[in-house]
C-alpha cells in the first residue's frame, strides 16, 4: 500500500489521527508533508479504521487541512554500510555533515529484534580504562552495559570522553557510536573535539538530536544508533562502544508521548512500560556466540535532584549490568572523577577479573576496599556527632584512610592513565593505613604478599 491521504482528523500534542484508512500496518512509517516540508511519523495505534500517528518532528504548523500523508508500508529502516563510520547524522539518521546520503549495503528495521539468550555469549573480557575507580572497583567488561549516573553540572562528559580515549578496546577493529538525545550543542561539540584529538573521529558515527531538535525524534535516535552498532559489531565483527546521552531526556520524551495518548501513568508521570522500553535499548548490548564483535554500552543519565530512586536511574539500574555513580560531594571537594563507589557496581566484573584476567588479588582487594570505605562512612557520621577528636585510634585510622583513598585512588587527572597493576598496588598501599587486623576480607596469604603498613606522610610525599 502506498497511498496518499489529504488532511488530518485530529491533532493532539505529538499525535495526529487519520480516519478512513484501510490496510495500515502497526508501527509503519508515514511521511506527512505540509507546506513543502516533509516529516516522519510512526503508526502507534490502529482503531477500527482510524490510525494514530506519532510525528517525530513535532506537529507545530500542522493543520487539519494543510497536510498530505503518505504510507510507506515499512517500519523505520536505517541504511547500513561500513562507510557510515566517520559520519554525522541527525536524530532520525539523516546525514547532516554535507557528505551526501549513506551508501546502503543493507537496510534494517531500527527497532531490531530481541536477541535470543541462547545465541548470546556471556561477556568475560575486561576493558582497561586507566581509571582506578573503574578498573579496580567497577570493572568494565567488553559487551557490558554500564551506565554513568550523574547530576547536572557533574563531569560525566569528561569521564565518558576519558573512557573512550583510554579504553583499550583492542586494536584497529573498534568503532564508537555516539548518540545524543536532547543535549546541548556544546556537549556534542565537546565529544566531537575529544574524538578528534584522540584521532578516532573516522571510527565514530555520531547521531545528534540536540536540545532544540524535536522532542519526539528522541525516541528513534538511539534505535538508529543501535541498529548501526549491531551492524558494525555482528556483521563487520567490530568492537563497538556506544555512548548514549542523556537517557533522562529520552525518557522524558517518552513521558510526553504517553501523556498525549492519555495513558495511565505509573511513577512521576512516566508510563508503566518505561522499563520495557529502556530494556529494548539496553538489551541490545552484548556478544554473540558465533561472532567476533561486541557492543559495549555506556549510557549517561542525569538524575533529577541527584535522586537515585527517580524512575529513570532506578529502572535503568534494574536493566543494566551495574552503574557508575557520580557524587556532588566529591565533586565539590575537587575530586575528579567524583565516583561514589559504594552505590557503584559492575555486575560482570565477577567473571572478568582475578587470576587469568587481571590479577589474583583483585576480587578480594576490591571487596576489602569497598568494606573499609563503607566503614569510613559510618565513622564520618559518628565524627560529625561527637567530633573527630573523640574518635578512637582505630577510627582515626579509618578517617585518614578515607581521605587518602579519595584523594589518591579515586582522584586522578583527566588524562592520567593507570594500568591495572598500578591501580591494584595503589589500593594495597592505601590499605597500609589501616592495621592488619582490620583487613577482614583478605586471607593471610594475600596480606603476607601485598600488605605493608605505611604512615600518612609517606603517602603524601610520594604524591602518586
Amino acid at each position: 500500500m502506498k497511498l496518499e491521504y489529504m488532511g488530518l482528523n485530529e491533532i493532539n500534542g505529538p499525535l495526529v489521527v487519520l480516519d478512513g484508512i484501510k490496510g495500515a500496518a502497526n508501527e509503519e512509517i508515514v511521511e506527512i508533508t505540509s507546506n513543502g516540508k516533509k516529516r516522519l511519523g510512526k503508526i502507534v495505534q490502529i482503531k477500527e479504521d482510524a490510525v494514530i500517528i506519532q510525528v517525530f518532528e513535532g506537529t507545530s504548523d500542522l493543520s487539519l487541512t494543510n497536510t498530505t500523508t503518505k504510507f510507506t508500508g515499512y517500519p523505520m529502516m536505517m541504511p547500513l554500510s561500513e562507510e557510515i563510520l566517520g559520519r554525522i547524522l541527525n536524530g532520525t539518521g539523516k546525514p547532516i555533515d554535507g557528505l551526501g546520503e549513506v551508501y546502503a549495503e543493507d537496510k534494517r528495521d531500527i527497532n531490531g529484534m530481541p536477541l535470543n539468550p541462547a545465541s548470546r555469549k556471556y561477556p568475560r573480557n575486561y576493558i582497561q580504562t586507566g581509571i582506578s575507580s573503574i578498573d579496580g572497583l567497577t570493572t568494565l567488561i567488553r559487551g557490558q552495559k554500564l551506565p554513568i549516573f550523574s547530576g547536572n553540572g557533574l563531569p560525566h562528559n569528561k569521564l565518558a570522553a576519558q573512557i573512550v580515549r583510554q579504553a583499550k578496546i583492542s586494536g584497529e577493529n573498534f568503532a564508537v557510536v555516539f548518540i545524543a538525545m536532547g543535549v546541548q550543542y556544546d556537549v556534542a561539540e565537546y565529544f566531537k573535539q575529544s574524538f578528534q584529538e584522540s584521532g578516532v573521529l573516522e571510527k565514530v558515527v555520531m547521531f545528534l538530536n540536540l536540545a532544540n531538535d524535536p522532542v519526539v525524534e528522541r525516541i528513534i535516535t538511539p534505535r538508529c544508533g543501535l541498529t548501526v552498532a549491531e551492524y558494525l559489531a555482528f556483521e563487520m565483527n567490530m568492537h563497538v562502544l556506544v555512548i548514549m546521552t542523556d537517557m533522562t531526556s529520552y525518557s522524558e520524551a517518552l513521558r510526553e508521548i504517553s501523556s498525549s495518548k492519555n495513558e495511565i501513568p505509573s511513577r512521576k508521570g512516566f508510563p508503566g512500560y518505561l522499563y520495557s522500553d529502556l530494556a529494548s535499548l539496553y538489551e541490545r548490548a552484548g556478544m554473540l556466540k558465533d561472532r567476533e564483535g561486541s557492543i559495549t554500552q555506556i549510557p549517561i543519565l542525569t538524575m533529577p535532584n541527584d535522586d537515585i530512586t527517580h524512575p529513570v536511574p532506578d529502572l535503568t539500574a534494574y536493566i543494566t549490568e551495574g552503574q557508575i555513580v557520580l557524587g556532588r560531594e566529591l565533586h565539590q571537594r575537587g575530586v575528579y572523577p567524583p565516583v561514589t563507589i559504594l552505590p557503584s557496581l559492575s555486575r560482570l566484573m565477577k567473571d572478568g577479573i582475578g587470576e587469568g584476567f587481571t590479577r589474583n588479588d583483585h576480587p578480594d582487594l576490591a571487596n576489602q576496599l569497598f568494606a573499609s570505605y563503607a566503614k569510613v562512612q559510618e565513622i564520618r557520621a559518628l565524627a560529625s556527632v561527637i567530633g573527630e577528636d573523640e574518635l578512637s585510634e582505630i577510627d582515626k585510622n579509618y578517617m585518614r584512610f578515607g581521605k587518602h583513598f579519595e584523594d589518591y585512588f579515586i582522584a586522578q587527572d583527566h588524562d592520567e592513565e593507570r594500568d591495572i597493576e598500578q591501580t591494584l598496588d595503589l589500593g594495597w598501599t592505601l590499605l597500609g593505613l589501616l592495621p592488619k587486623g582490620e583487613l577482614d576480607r583478605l586471607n593471610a596469604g594475600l596480606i603476607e604478599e601485598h600488605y605493608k603498613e605505611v604512615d600518612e606522610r609517606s603517602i603524601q610525599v610520594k604524591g602518586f
Partner: protein
Amino acid sequence: MVGVMEDKTVGYINGINGSVITINGSPDFKMREMVIVGNSKLIGEVIAIRGEDVIAQVYEITTGLKLNEPVIGTKKPLSVTLGPGIIGNIFDGIQRPLEKIRDLSGAYINRGLTVDRLDTDKKWDIEIKVKKGDYLTGGSVIGEIQESEAVIHKVMVPPFVEGEVIKLKESGSYTINEVLAVLKDKRHENEIRMLQEWPVREARPYKDRQTPKQPLITGQRVFDTMFPIAKGGTGAIPGGFGTGKTMTQHQFAKWSDADIIVYIGCGERGNEITEVLEDFPELIDPKTKRPLMERTILIANTSNMPVAAREASIYTGTTLAEYYRDMGYHVAIMADSTSRWAEALREISGRLEEMPAEEGFPAYLSSRLSEFYERAGFVTNLNESEGSLTVIGAVSPQGSDFSEPVTMNTKRFVRCFWALDKQLAYERHYPAVNWSNSYSEYIDELALYYKNNVAPDFMEKRTMVSALLQEESKLMEIVKLIGSDILPDEQKLVLESCKVLRQGFLQQNAFHEDDTYVPIKKQYLMMDLILKMHEKAKTLVAKGIPVSVIRKTEVFNDLIKMKYSIDNTHLEKFKELETSIFNKLNELSMKYER
C-alpha cells in the same frame, strides 16, 4: 482423545494497540482461547470479550500487523506440552524451545515461527510398568524413561482420564506422539502417549495437601539456619537493584536439594540466562554428581522480549513444575522477577483501559499473586507419590520502596520474606539479607526436622544467634551517637561476637569454591562454636579482662576465617579449632588470675 471435525472460528483484526488487538466477526471465540493472529501467524490468547469486540493479547511483536488480517481460533486454551525432553531445555514464555528457534532464525528471534515445543522425532526408551487388564486412573505411571542421567521421567495417565488397559505397547523406543496404551472406561477409549497437554493457567490436581515439614536446604547459611524455607513452601526475595536477588536465586538453583529446578527469567537480563546456560552444564550437583543442567528447566522471557509472553512465562514455568511434582519429585521454582510479571499485567490492563488501582496496577494484582503462590505445596499426588513445589519469587520494588504494591501484596501470600538491604549491599555484605526485617514462618514446622537430622539443640542455638544480633542492633543505635569506646566491656563483647557472626557466619562468599555451598551440619558447627566462644569470653570479661585484650588472642579472627580454614569435607577440624580457641582463652584467663 476423540477426533471431532473442526469448523474454524475466524475473525478479523479491528484494532491494534501494542500487544493487544481487537477482533471482530465471530461470536464463537472463547475466553482464554489460543488464537493465531494475522498473516504472519502470531500466537495470541483471548483475554476479554466485550460485545462484538473480542480482545486478545499477542505473544509476539505486533509490528507490521494490519487491520482486517484474519484471526483464527484454535478452540483450545493456551497450553503447555508435557513429556520427555523438557529437562535441560530452555523455552520462551510460551514454551517454544529457544535453541530450536536459534537454529531456525539465527541470533534474533523472528516472528511467526512454528516450532514443535518438544522434539517429535526423537525416540525415547521407555520401560512399561503396567500390564493389560490393569485399571488405571489419572496420575498412574505407565512407564519410565531415563530423561537425563539425573531424572527418571514417569509417563503418567493424564488427570481425569481412567480406564482398563486394553492395548499396550511393549517396553522399547518410541516418539512422544506414538500411542503407548489405550484405556477403556465406560464411555471412551483413551489413547495414552508420552505427550500430554495442559492449560497453563490451571493448576494440575493432586490428591491431598500436607503440611510441609522438610526444609529446602540451600547450602546458604543465612537462609538455612536463620530463615529456612520448607519444601513446598513460598518465599519472596525483595530488594532494590543490585542487592543480590538474581545471585541468590542462582545459588538456590545450583545448590538447593530440590530434585528439579525450574528457573524463570521473567523480564530480566539476557546475559543472566546465558550465564546459566554456560555455567550449569559445567557445575556438578553435590547430590547426584551429575551436571546441574540435567535437573534444570529454563524459561526465558528477557526484558526485550514481548511483554504478553512475560505474563505467560510464569504460568508456563509453574505448569512444567507441577508436572514433575506429579511424578513424585521435589521441584523448586525460581521466578526472577515477579515484579516484571506484575508490570506486564499492568501494561496489558492499561491497554484494555481497565480501571487502575494503586500505581496503575490492576485491582486483580493481588488475586493473581495469590493464585501463583497458591500453586506451591507439599502434596500427595494422584498416584500416591509425594512431591512438592516450592515457589521462590524475586521482587524488584521501584525506588527500593518496600511499600509499593507488588512487595506489599506479595508479603501477604508468602511465608518466607528475605528482605535484601541496600546498605548491606553497599558494604558488600552478601547475601545482603537484612536479619531484622526478614522472617520465616516455617520455623515451627521445621523444628523437628532440624532436631532429628542436624542437632537436637539447633533451634535453641538459632534463637540465641537471633537474640545476640538483636542486642547488637540496639547497641549500634547508641554507638552511632557516642562511639563504642565508652561502652562497658560486656557490651563491647556483644559487638565483637556479632561482628564474628556477621562476617564469619551470615556473610557467605558465592565465589569461593567451598563457601559457595555449606552443608547444614557445618552451618550448625560454625554457629555452635561462635556461641561457645561468646559464652566463654563472657566469663573472662566478668573477671575484668578487657575485650581489647581478648581480641589480641585472635580468637575472633580465627572464627571469622573458619569458613575458609575448615573445608566442607573435614568437619572434624571443628574440634581442633574449638580446642585451640579454648586454650587461648583459658591461658589468658589464667594469666589474669595470677
